[in-house]
């Protein structure tokens, strides 16, 4: 057991910290820090800055841009990025479809897609969930029927995050309706400009447009866009959902928001004598409590990455997702309370309101983050995994 980083890792951390705090465009980091909405251009620009420095896909195979880092180094990379308010590379590209193509794709698919995926020349969307297949993903109904060299796809996907920007979408489709539900699924890559693909926005309760429905009406997809074998899609899906444990808990960004919350509370006077909200013992103790929980979560993440070096996820990974989303939500709720009356100003802008941007963003962010315990394997699914695979219940 040892507390300190090795010299190499300490140097590694210092270099990344230097890079993230000086080389990523300041406008992007400002929006992240103020919890605003990034434009598509900012997301792409930020991603490419990372990719140019070899920092977008460090966990990929080396021949496709990977860096062969240790799990601890990947953790440090992820934490430093968030700490510096740098937007991580687009997860759909780098954490989801990229590793799948690298693992299961043909050589042609790799050459065609991986470099553009790493550089966000292709913006990938995710087409897994369906209206009647939420936590029960395998019950999906979007169908692909073979027609000559093509597949004909029909159906509907939903909760497609940032689908409005998508160039391509990786989908799970039913290619055999007559077998056990997991056995009849394939993974198809679909060009979103294909005729018959329609993206419809879903407005969320925070007023934002972040997710979409994607409709497929007789969409013709070349057979070469199938990843892996026909009817092996569940294998790819499980690989995709399970392979990436670094960054499953957004520790770094939640820590940053909590640190900002302290600044905000310290800047909020509650009395004519200059007492601030940070002097309020109930607020301070809530902050201390959340800091301690976050520390415990970060340390657990460090334990998990250290123990997943053999490629198999540590069984405690579900703890990271479960507790990570809870703490993310809890911090966002505290910000709502710190904002106080100013939280009413959510629709205001710097032109129409004298309230601070963080105050105006507080409640939309809180409401938006209710999704954190639902998307990507709900907390109920995580509890089921813990009870089943760890406790044997």
């Amino acid at each position, binding site marked *: 057991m040892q507390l300190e980083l090795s010299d190499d890792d300490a140097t590694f951390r210092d270099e990344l910290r230097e890079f993230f705090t000086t080389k990523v465009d300041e406008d992007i980091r400002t929006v992240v820090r103020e919890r605003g909405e990034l434009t598509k251009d900012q997301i792409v620009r930020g991603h490419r800055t990372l990719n140019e420095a070899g920092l977008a896909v460090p966990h990929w195979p080396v021949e496709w841009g990977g860096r062969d880092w240790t799990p601890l180094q990947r953790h440090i990379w992820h934490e430093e990025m968030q700490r510096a308010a740098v937007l991580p590379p687009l997860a759909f590209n780098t954490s989801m479809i990229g590793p799948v193509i690298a693992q299961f794709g043909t050589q042609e698919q790799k050459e065609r897609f991986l470099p553009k995926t790493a550089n966000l020349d292709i913006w990938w969307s995710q087409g897994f969930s369906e209206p009647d297949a939420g936590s029960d993903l395998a019950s999906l109904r979007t169908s692909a029927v073979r027609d000559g060299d093509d597949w004909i796809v029909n159906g509907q996907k939903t909760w497609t995050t940032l689908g409005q920007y998508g160039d391509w979408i990786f989908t799970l489709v039913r290619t055999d309706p007559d077998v056990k539900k997991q056995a009849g699924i394939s993974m198809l890559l679909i060009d979103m400009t294909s005729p018959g693909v329609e993206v419809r926005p879903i407005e969320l*309760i925070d*007023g934002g447009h972040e997710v979409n429905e994607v409709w497929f009406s007789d969409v013709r997809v070349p057979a070469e866009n199938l990843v892996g074998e026909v009817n092996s899609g569940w294998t790819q899906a499980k690989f995709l959902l399970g392979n990436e444990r670094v960054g499953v808990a957004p520790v770094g960004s939640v820590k940053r928001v909590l640190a900002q919350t302290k600044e905000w509370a310290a800047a909020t006077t*509650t009395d004519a004598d200059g007492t601030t909200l940070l002097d309020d013992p109930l607020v301070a103790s809530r902050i201390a409590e959340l800091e301690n929980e976050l520390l415990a979560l970060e340390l657990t993440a460090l334990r998990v990455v250290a123990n997943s070096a053999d490629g198999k996820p540590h069984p405690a990974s579900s703890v990271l997702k479960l507790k990570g989303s809870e703490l993310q939500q809890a911090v966002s709720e505290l910000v709502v309370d710190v904002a106080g009356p100013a939280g009413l100003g959510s*629709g205001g802008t710097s032109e129409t*309101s004298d309230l601070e941007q963080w105050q105006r963003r507080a409640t939309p962010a809180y*409401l*938006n983050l209710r999704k954190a315990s639902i998307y990507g394997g709900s907390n109920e699914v995580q509890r089921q995994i813990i009870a089943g695979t760890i406790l044997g219940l």
Partner: protein
Amino acid sequence: MDFTYDEEQLALRDAARSLLTKSYSDFENRRKAVGTGHDGDGPGYDPAVWGQMAEMGLLALPFSEEDGGVGAGPVEVGIVAEEVGRVIAPEPFLTTVVLAGGLVAAVGTDEQRGEIVGGLAAGELVPALAHAEPGSRWQPSARTVSATQDGDTWTLEGVKEPVPYGATADLLVVSAALPDGGTGLFTVDPSVDGVERTGYRTPDGGRAARVRLSGVTATPLGEAGADATEAIAASYDATRVAAAQEAVGAMQVALDTTSDYLKSRKQFGVPLKTFQALTFRAADMYVSLELARSLAQWATMVLASPSTDAAERRTAATRAWAQVSRAARHIGQEAIQLHGGIGVTAEYSVGSYTAHLTTLDHLLGDSRHHLGALARGVADYDVVDPIG
């Protein structure tokens, strides 16, 4: 001690429920009324519904007959508030009738009461209370907006924000720091020179505004130069209690909607209600709701009682809102979680219930804030005795 409504009160409830259900049982109607996106175009509610509420006498409830009201009290206000909450009607019943109207009724001159309260009751005049200031936190006093006096002329200077429904209000009731200390109340015609209003949406689809006052001539509400701090606090207390009833209505429907969803939605081939981990959480929501309902009703009775004093009413409002606010977080969060993805969409109702319940805290203070106030007093008494 009696928690039951009399026949007249039950009739009021039925009438209010009938009107509001007709207007908003189709959730799309609420979406249309509040508008979509971030902008704050339009008043944020349906003036036709507001007019029907006025016709039914709902806007006149708490006011005396001589002021143009119907002389009912906190119980009747609470009944309507609960019905407003059940459909989260966007009409500004709480901020206009209870908060602004209540304050005018408390401190206005006969003439002012007749004009403002009478106009409000008739649905002809919508006032707004401009009290909060950037940096204030539910204090009953004004700090950055100040009033200066020159003979009989009073002039206001400063920024009020957020002002609920302030951009479209017909009349502003403005609090301001008085030259000799204390906080005075004034009425301001929003169309006069020096008033600049910019409105926007609140997180629940309601409206608020920044109101800049630059040397605006204002009319004292009630006695010129009198300190209205206590009256402002009392009006916020009454609003907390009515809001508690409103929240109870909203929480009830959020729970009902969730229960219905658990019965109808299938996952893994069976209805969600097959999963005990989910139904037990719904049961815990019910527990939160019933406890909150008890405190809301009790605080209403404390306000309605002729034998309670201002301090008791303050405490009751604080207790009620502290409990309701916490229940609202619990129920609002769980209602979304038990729905899954659909719960965070604007098309489906339950997320908007959660948004509204959260937004009430911005207006009235979160539970930690009120718990802190209660904590500072625990040494002063032995037990809490609810029976008057």
